[in-house]
Each structure stands twice: as C-alpha cells, then as structure tokens.
C-alpha cells in the first residue's frame, strides 16, 4: 500500500506541472521559512462575516433527466423563469438523489449555442449547410404534402427511424397508423442482441428488463458493460456491494470505471465472452454444480426433442395431440405432458415416441454440447486469453456461492401449479451485461450462453439472483408478431399491427414470395430473422442503393446518422448525397430530421423540425415502452416542461401528433376530421391502447383512483407532477420472486395488462423457433429458405446456444489485422451530445487510441505518437496512449468525442476536430466478401445487431510525425442560415 501512496505523490507532482506551478517552487520554499512566526500571527486572527443561507431560486420543479438514457429524477431550481441549478431528486426511485457528471452539467446543455432556433428548409445542395428559416406552418404544410403523397401511393416508401428515443410507444404507433413497416429506433446498433437473446430465452433481459438483487446478492459478474449505461443505479449498487464486501468480477477487455473498482478484472479478448461463459458451464457440469430442481421446474430442459436422424421433424419438440410438449417420467416409465412439472421427468436418455421416432430431453443435448472438449477451460483459454485456471476458479466461486450461500426469505407463496411454499430460496449469483456482449456478430448466442449460466445455477428471479422488473417477465418470446407483410401495407391505410415484434417461425418473416425483404433495412428477412429492433444501420445504405427498394422519404429523429451513429461514415455521406441517374434527384429524395441541436446530420436533411430540450417538454416514460421499474414495483414517469422555450422550437412528439392529424391518420383525428389531441400531453392523458390501458399507469379512472387499468383522468399529469413525476405500483409481497412461475405474480401482472395469460413462463434453453429455421434451410419447413441464404441459416440457427468466431474476423487475414478495436463512452459523456457542453468538453475534448504497453513497446510506440490505424475499408490517423489495463490484442478509444468541424456550435479549430477521431470510419457496413452471392450487412445473423465491436485493425507508426491533425479529414460543414 505504501507503494500505492508513493505513486499518488508522484502523480501529484505531475499535476503541479500541469498547473504550471513548478516554476514557483523556490518562492514556496522561501515562504516555508516564515512558519516560525506562526504563534505570533495567531494573535491577530480575524475572519469576515459571510452569507450562509443564500437563496438561489424562486421556484423548484421536479422532472426527469435526459442527459443519458438512465432517467433519473431531478429537481430544477428556477429564478426569474430561468434554469438556475439542477440536482438529483432524493425522492426518486432511480437515483435517490445522486446525479452523475452528465446530469449535473445538464444546465449547459440547455444553454448550448448549438441549439436550433426555428424550422429550417434546405436551400443549397445537401451537405452545404445552406438553409432558410421558415415558419412552423410552412414546415408542417411541406412535410404533410410530402408524406401524404407517399401514404396515398405506397406507405412503405416512408421510413421513420428514431435514435435514443424514449417515446417509442408513440413513434411506433404513429408509423403503424401511417401504414409503413419501416420503423425502428437505435436498438439495432445498441443492444438488440441482449434484448432478443433474453426475451427468446427467459422472457426478460438486462437493464430495463431486470437487475441483480443488489441487497442480497453474494457474487456479481459484470459482462462487457458500457459505463454510461444504467449509469446511476449500477453505480449506486456497486457502492453497496463494495461496502458489503460482495465480490465483483468484471469481464471486459478494458479496465476503466467499474473495472477499476472490481475485485477481479478479466481482460478477455473481444467477441469471446460466449466461449468463456460456455467454459464456465462446462466446468459447472464437470463439478456437478447445477440446480436440477430449478431446471425441472422452470425450463424446457425436460422437453423431449425428436432425435431420429433424417426425420422431417428432426429437432422439433415432441408433442401430444393437444400440442403439449412431452417429457419422460422415469417412475411411471411413460411419456407425459411436460407442462405437468414433476421431479420425475428425465433429463437425459433416449425414448421412443408413439410414432416410432426417438426423442431425448433437451437438456441431454445441452449437456452434450457444453461438456465437449470445445468448451473445456483448456481449449477455451487460447481463444479467450483467459487462463484455464482462472476459468476453473471462477466456476468454483460461482458454484460455492450459488449452492453454499443460499438466501432464504420467509414468505408464503404459491407457484403456478398450486403448490404452497413457505419461503423464497435463492442462489445469490447475479449478472449484468451490455453492449460489449451485444455489439458482436455472435452476440445473440453469447448472450444466450450467459443466460444458460444463470439458469443452470438457478439464479433467475430468486433472492440474491437476477430479478425481473415488471412488466417483465413476458412470454418467451413476447406475443407480438411484426406487421408489414405484403397484405399488411396498403395505400392510405394503417397497418394491422405494430412494426416491431418477435418471430417464432419462418412464416412470421416479412418477405415477399421470392424471399426478398419487405422492410427497407432487411429486418425480419432471411438476413436478420429475429431483428426485434430493426437495422437502423442499414437504412441509409439500402435506400441510397435501392436495395431492396427505393425510399421516397427518410424521417429521422434524434439520430446522428451523418456521423457517429453510422458505420463507415465516408460511405454514409456519399449515400446521403448520391444522385439517382434516372431521376437526377437525390437517391433518397427527401430527408426530414428533428433534433434540438446543430449536429453533423442537420446539413444533410431537407427539412429540419427543431426540437426542444428535455427541460421544455412533456414526455412519458411508459410501461408500454422502456419503463423505470424496479423488481418490487412497476414504475413509470413523466417529464414536464419546467421552462418555456425561448425560441421557435416545438417538442417532436407534439409535432408528430399534429402531422398525424394533418395527414388524417386514424387515431389522431375525430370523426369530423378535427385533430384528436392538442399536443403530446393531451395524447399521454387520453390515448388508450384498449381496455383502459394508456401511456401512463398511475391515477387512472375519472377520479384517479384506479391503477394500471382505467379510463383517462384529466388530472393525471397533475398527479404525476405532485408525486415527483413518477408513479410506483408495488408488486404484492408474495409475488416478488419466481415471477415467471408465481401464481400471485402472474395474476397481478395480468390484471395490470402486462401479460395476456397466467400460464407460467417456461425458460427455453432449447429454442424450437431457431430449429424451425434450420429445418426450413433443409427444405423441411415452410416457407423454405431461399437457396442464397440456406448455408447461413443452417450454420447459425442452432436451437442450442453456441459460440462461433465473429463473422468479419473469420473472413479476414488474421495476421494483418492483428488488433481488436473497440470503443466505449466515458461516464461523463453520452452519445454525441457531450461536446457542445461547456463543462463536459473541458473534461474530454479529444481522444487517443489506447494500447497495451507491451504491444506499444513491440511496435516502438510511446505516448502521443501519431499512428495509422487501418481496417480492410479505411484508415484513421490519430495519437496513441499506452496503458496496462487493456487486453493485449485490443486497442480502444472513447466514442463520439471526435466531431466534424462546423457542427455543434464549436469553433472550427476545436480539439474535437483536430485531434478527435471516430473508429466508425473503419467499420464496414457490409461483410468483406459475398456469401453465396448475397452481400450481408456487418451484423449478427440472427438479430441483425450491428457488429461494430467486431472491428479488426492493423496499426503502424505514422510515416510523418509532423502531422498534427487526425484523419480522415472532412471539410467543415457550414451553418449558413438565412434568418426570417
């Protein structure tokens, strides 16, 4: 420890130099000599009177933060109707008073010089930044004329894509009423692998879907987490765990933030987390450390899988005449309904079905896979970079915690089968995972393997384990299929359902008779069948190249697609300005964009609808969308305008509702054609999805005395305002654990409209839907996979999760592109918004590429050297910084700090442009080679998740060290705005 303090001191000396104080050391030493006079000096001591009780506001309002996606409660201090000070709201369930670096800098976001002032119409060429201000009426009339023509001809030709939108319950519904299937938010970049893997396995997932039982857990594994996500709740929890002495193990190629305080950092090679988790499973099986009872009660481990080679229904679940899955009862020696759960159901062995075919419990197949040598710690060690002894030890720690430290809570409860229990018994191992797992082309499967690990340990929704947050769990997968089939899209008509949903069979896909994609982003096509969040990263590419078809209008909200929210930015900018030779018009003829700030994307849009800041608007953080629930309560929340805009801007949601009314969209007009809602607040209050379920669950019913379900209450928003802007609906105490199989919970959740039935939610270790796709590739299931895609579907649609190398890497020359290159956002920045913030950009305004010291020495690199970083599609010039806490074959940087000159209201010499850079320039939109004649996107083959963590690069010292500017260099974008 002494050594540690020595280093602190060394560091402080370095700080001196930074403070330019070192030249004054001599003077300081002289002054130190005067200490001898101290006694005499005390006699003359005096101190001034100061004001201790200053008042800084004349009003305090509560609302919800939007400096990231975390949605903490805040108190906004106002003076003379201006925002004066923002602090965490200690009465709010998300943050309980704390606030992060971003949240406390929110005031500077509000006063950003990059804020748009009025609607803009493009008057120069795209990218020129030449605009004229127009009135809202003119803007909305123009937008309506464009949109209305498309809707009356072919609504599919309009795509609405939103970024970190927190109003998807509205935006998705709006797209559906417009009649287009082409809707999604940014999940296809961010976390769809996590969400889809979880929802297709156990009806929940991480983050908004569930969280560790922080108070009771005894072991916490944090997988690949971007540190700006679920920010304050996780930080609060880590603080708690550290105080209780609970072990925190972080699996991440980089040791920063959470990794820095973890008890153990496992610096894994990017893209191999699934393999590491698979080896832990291997070791648990070897150690016979599996919760058999849990598997029999809650999973489809006992379900019999048809196992006769060559059978038409090979790999499907054996079922009785009523469609119930079959299990084999080893006491009765007979086939039984697997849903009548019993501890007598076999978990391995081969059994004969009435039709003569053989079948085996699915668990037998799973054990077979993970006990193979492929997953042994020894063979996994080389690929993951994690020592075999470490894998063996971690598996031991998990087993000991799970099986020797049971957590028990005395509470009578009844399971779905009617069996009474006197306590909740839990295995206190918990996990959280995010983008580091998700943003790989094997992310869906890797995440499923992590869920296997949780389930084999019996650690889902039990005391000390991982807990669902209502409205989760939902059916596996949720009972919502995507709309957008050929017959679903008709001129002038709404679609019969929501654009996003969950696929359970090839027949759910959105493809035409030839198997071509029906969505512009190829979501729910053979390229990405389980693409529950769409493929935002493919929209611009596909529309500009008219594959699968052309778009007439691209409508974007809060998505910086012209910069850090696209892969391969040079190509993306070409696509945005590409001319269709047949028409002489832009290949994407119209682009409407709504944002609050002058981002890099603004210059590429034709019509700008300026949004407000989060302090000037109504918002609903709805249970229909992405709520802020906790395991013990369903919670939703609002934002409310704490100040009025001082400029001609409007909240996007209100604008969308007005556009809907102007277009005459069903649900947005009254019978006489007049607008149904005056603004978003009116919509939040009065819109019903049916059966008394609306945007908000609190204070429903005319008198506000109903919860969850009830008619609209005109005072509802007022009640929220009076209650710190949230509503919390506690889960009954006998319904708090084993929610997936707890009778009281299932009944309660149904009464709240969260689920449609009180049937138990069975975890699908074995995923029959995936097997249907594989059978379809073999020509044994309808519709059949087109020849083009057969190999890919056969390879990756495995009903049992498995690990495979990431796609791009397996196609590249591994020798040349030696390093994995990944990025993460610093905790004090979010998305691209941070750089316009006067305070946050003082903390970070340029980025470097971090590399392990040993590799740096091998390449003769030292800190701040300029380096060339090249991928198979491009090259970046930047500076390097060496560190120890970085996996040896990995380089990384902070994301979204590099900016394009001219954007965000920054001076054109700002360090964000001169020294900042993005890795996006190096990430290909498509995979390197054609696979069977089809050019696949650089995405997960199951879900279409953008695989931007798959990047591999080559690094060398820059030839000229005189270069002081990062590359690629983009011409500054102008902001030539003709004011009204």
């Amino acid at each position, binding site marked *: 420890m002494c*050594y*540690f303090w020595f*280093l*602190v*001191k060394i*560091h*402080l000396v370095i*700080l001196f130099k*930074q403070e330019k104080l070192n030249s004054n050391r001599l*003077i300081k030493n002289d*002054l130190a000599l*005067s*200490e001898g006079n101290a006694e005499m*000096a*005390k006699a003359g*001591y*005096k*101190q001034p009177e100061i004001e*201790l009780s200053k*008042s800084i506001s004349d009003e305090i309002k509560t609302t919800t933060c939007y400096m990231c996606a975390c949605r903490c409660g805040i108190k906004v*201090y106002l003076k003379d109707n201006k925002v004066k*000070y923002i*602090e965490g709201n200690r009465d709010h369930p998300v943050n309980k008073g*704390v*606030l*992060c*670096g971003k949240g*406390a*800098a929110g005031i500077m976001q509000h006063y950003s010089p990059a804020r748009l002032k009025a609607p803009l119409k493009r008057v120069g060429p795209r990218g020129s930044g030449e605009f004229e201000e127009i009135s809202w009426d003119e803007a909305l009339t123009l937008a309506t004329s464009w949109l209305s023509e498309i809707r009356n001809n072919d609504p599919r030709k309009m795509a609405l894509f939103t970024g970190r939108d927190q109003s998807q319950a509205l935006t998705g519904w709006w797209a559906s009423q417009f009649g287009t299937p082409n809707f999604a938010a940014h999940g296809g970049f961010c976390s769809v692998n996590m969400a889809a893997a979880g929802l297709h396995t156990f009806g929940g997932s991480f983050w908004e879907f569930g969280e560790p039982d922080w108070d009771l857990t005894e072991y916490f594994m944090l997988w690949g987490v971007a540190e700006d996500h679920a920010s304050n709740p996780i*930080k609060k929890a*880590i*603080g708690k765990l550290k*105080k209780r002495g609970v072990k925190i193990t972080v699996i991440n190629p980089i040791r*920063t*933030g*959470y990794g*820095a*305080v*973890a008890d153990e950092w496992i610096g894994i090679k990017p893209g191999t987390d699934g393999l590491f988790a698979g080896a832990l499973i291997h070791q648990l099986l*070897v*150690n*016979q450390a599996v919760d058999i009872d849990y598997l029999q009660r809650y999973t489809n481990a006992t379900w019999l899988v048809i196992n006769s080679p060559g059978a038409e229904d090979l790999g499907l679940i054996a079922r009785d005449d009523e469609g119930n899955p079959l299990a084999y009862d080893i006491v009765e020696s007979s086939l039984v309904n697997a849903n009548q759960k019993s501890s007598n159901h076999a978990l*391995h062995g081969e059994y004969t079905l009435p039709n003569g075919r053989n079948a085996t419990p699915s668990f037998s197949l799973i*054990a077979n896979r993970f006990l193979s040598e492929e997953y042994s710690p020894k063979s996994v060690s080389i690929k993951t970079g994690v*020592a075999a*002894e*470490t894998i063996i*030890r971690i598996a031991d720690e998990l*087993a000991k915690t799970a099986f020797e430290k049971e957590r028990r809570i005395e509470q009578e409860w009844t399971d779905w089968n009617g069996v009474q229990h006197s306590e909740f018994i839990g295995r206190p191992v918990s996990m959280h995972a995010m983008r580091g797992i998700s943003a790989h082309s094997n992310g869906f499967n890797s995440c499923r393997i992590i869920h296997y690990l949780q389930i084999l340990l019996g650690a889902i929704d039990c005391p000390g384990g991982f807990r669902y947050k209502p409205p989760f769990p939902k059916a596996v997968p949720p009972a919502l299929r995507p709309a957008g089939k050929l017959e679903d899209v008709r001129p002038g008509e709404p679609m019969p359902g929501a654009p996003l949903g969950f696929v359970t069979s090839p027949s759910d896909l959105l493809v035409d008779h030839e198997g071509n994609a029906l969505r512009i982003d190829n979501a729910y096509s053979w390229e990405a069948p389980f693409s529950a969040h769409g493929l935002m990263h493919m929209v611009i590419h596909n529309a500009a190249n008219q594959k699968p078809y052309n778009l007439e209008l691209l409508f974007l909200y809060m998505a910086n697609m012209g910069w850090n929210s696209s892969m391969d930015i040079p190509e993306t900018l070409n696509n945005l300005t590409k001319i269709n030779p047949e028409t002489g018009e832009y290949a994407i003829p119209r682009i409407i964009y709504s944002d609050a700030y002058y981002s890099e994307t603004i210059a590429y849009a034709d019509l700008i609808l300026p949004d407000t800041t989060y302090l000037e608007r109504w918002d609903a953080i709805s249970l229909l969308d992405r709520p802020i629930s906790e395991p013990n309560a369903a919670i939703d929340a609002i934002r409310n305008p704490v100040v009025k805009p001082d400029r001609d801007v409007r909240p996007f949601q209100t604008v969308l509702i007005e556009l809907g009314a102007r277009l005459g969209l069903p649900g947005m007009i009254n019978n006489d054609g007049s607008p149904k809602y005056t603004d978003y607040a009116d919509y939040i209050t009065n819109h019903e999805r049916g059966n008394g379920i609306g945007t908000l669950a609190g204070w429903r019913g005319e008198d506000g005395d109903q919860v969850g379900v009830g008619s609209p209450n005109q005072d509802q928003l007022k009640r929220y305002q009076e209650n710190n802007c949230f509503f919390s609906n506690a889960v009954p105490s006998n319904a708090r654990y084993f929610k997936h199989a707890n009778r009281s919970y299932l009944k309660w959740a149904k009464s709240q409209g969260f689920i449609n039935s009180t049937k138990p939610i069975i975890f699908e270790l074995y995923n029959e839907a995936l097997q249907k796709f594989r059978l379809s590739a073999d020509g044994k299931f309808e519709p059949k996979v087109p020849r083009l895609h057969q190999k890919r579907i056969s390879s990756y649609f495995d009903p049992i999760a498995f690990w495979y190398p990431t796609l791009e890497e397996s196609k590249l020359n591994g020798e040349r592109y030696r390093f994995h290159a990944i990025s993460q956002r610093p*905790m*004090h920045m979010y998305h691209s918004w941070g750089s316009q913030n*006067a*305070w*946050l950009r*003082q903390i970070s305004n340029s980025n470097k590429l971090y590399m392990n010291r040993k590799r740096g020495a091998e390449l003769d690199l030292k800190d701040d050297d300029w380096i060339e970083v090249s991928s198979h599609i491009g090259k970046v010039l930047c500076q390097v910084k060496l560190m*120890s*806490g970085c996996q040896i074959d990995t380089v990384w940087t902070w994301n979204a700090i590099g900016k394009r000159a001219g954007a965000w209201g920054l*001076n054109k010499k*700002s*360090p964000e442009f001169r020294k900042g850079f993005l890795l996006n320039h190096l990430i290909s939109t498509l995979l390197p080679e054609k696979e069977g004649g089809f050019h696949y996107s650089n995405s997960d083959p199951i879900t279409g998740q953008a695989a931007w963590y798959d990047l591999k690069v080559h690094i060398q010292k820059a030839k000229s060290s005189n270069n002081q500017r990062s590359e690629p260099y983009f011409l500054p974008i102008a902001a030539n705005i003709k004011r009204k």
Partner: protein
Amino acid sequence: MTDLPSGTDKKLGLLIDLDICVGCHGCVTSCKEWNSTDDNLPLSDFDSYGEAPDGIFLNRVHGYETDDGISSQTVHFPRSCLHCEQPECVTVCPTGASYKRQEDGIVLVNPETCIGCKLCSWACPYGAREYDHKQGIMKKCTLCVDRIYNEELEEEDRKPACVLACPTSARLFGDFSDPQSDVSILSEKRGGVALMDNLGYKPVNRYLPPRKKHITSEQNSKNNANLQRFSDLKPSNGNSKLENFFSWLDQKLS
C-alpha cells in the same frame, strides 16, 4: 501575512473512498454547478466553445494506473482542497483574503479582499487552488459553506454538493475533530490517509485507500491453486465427462 485561528471548534472535511470511486465526474460537475449559481462570481469558463476550452473547477478527478506490472491498478483520484490545519496558503496571503474559519476549520477566500497575487496557489502543494483570471481572484473548495448551514435548504440537503451527488457514496462529509463522527470512525477503521502528511500542513480531508483485491486473474488463480474445489464428487472411473455427469443426474433423480 495572514493569521490562523489558534484552533478550530470543528474540523469539517471530506472522507474520500478511493476503493469505490469509479471516476464518473458527478462530484466535478455538481461542484461546478453549485458554485456557479452566484451570478456575480460564477466559476468562470474560458473559450467554452473554442479551440482551448478551459475553466475553473474546485474539484477534479484524475484517473491513472498505479504501475504497469502484474499488480497494476486503475485508480480514480478526486482532488480538491484538504482544508489543512496548518494551511500555508492562508499564512502567505498578503491581504487576509485567505483565511481559516475558527468555527469549523474551512479554508476560504474572501473575494472582496483577494488581489489575485497567486501566492496561495504557489504555497499549496496539492494544486487545490485555481485562479479565475476573468474575475482576477483565487477560487477554491468552500466545502459548500453556503449549503451546509443554509436554512433555505432542507436539513438533508445541507451537505456539500459533491457529497450529495456521488453515485457510489465514495464521499462522506463530517467533523474529523469528533472521534464519534461517521468520518472519524470509518477513517480509523479503513486506515484513512492524510495526503503527503510529511509536508506538515495537516490536511483534514482523508482518503480511504483501495482495499486489497484480486489484482489479476492469473495471479489470483496461482495463489488459489490449492483451494478446495466446489465438488469432490468427480468420479473418474474412465468414463467421459458426459457419462459422469449423466450418472450423477441419475443419482439425483432416483
């Protein structure tokens, strides 16, 4: 130069837990925000949207690695005024603008009498003072003296802004002169460190060092190679791992 009180009634200060600071900068911007609420004397920013953005912060967090060997650790180190008992930054002040409060020991600068000579920032070995050249005066952590006694605020909010904001509760505020205070007890228990104590300024703030952790997986695995395994049941009668596992399953189910 400036006199110190002969003693202080309290020793208010911060206890900063380096074991749980994740480096989020919540304390940094919360401090900046609270201390900029005075329209006349905000913490200035210079070239906010320009090529060399800079400004005054009374609290900064530095992240660094302790070394590059196998025992390397990443540490986040929040740095602000330590409210020393013998603050040379005060005694060097030629105008009496820098002073240590007799009632609680907080070291403050009186903006009305500060002449911006910077002697105090030269005297401070911790780099805790920042010169606001827009206003021509020195700035430093006030321990939120305008919050902690503020009757306009609710009782629970009468703490420094950085302490209230900290998401991991890595910052505690209290009276180090009271051995029964939370900060004294925890500092005692966890070996709270006075930074560069040998310089003799007697800092009031204490830092809790990072607790012992499994430094790296490799090292830890070697150290624990002889630990008892979870299961000693592994039969190894020549069967494959799968056969062994299935026979265990059969035992469990029979």
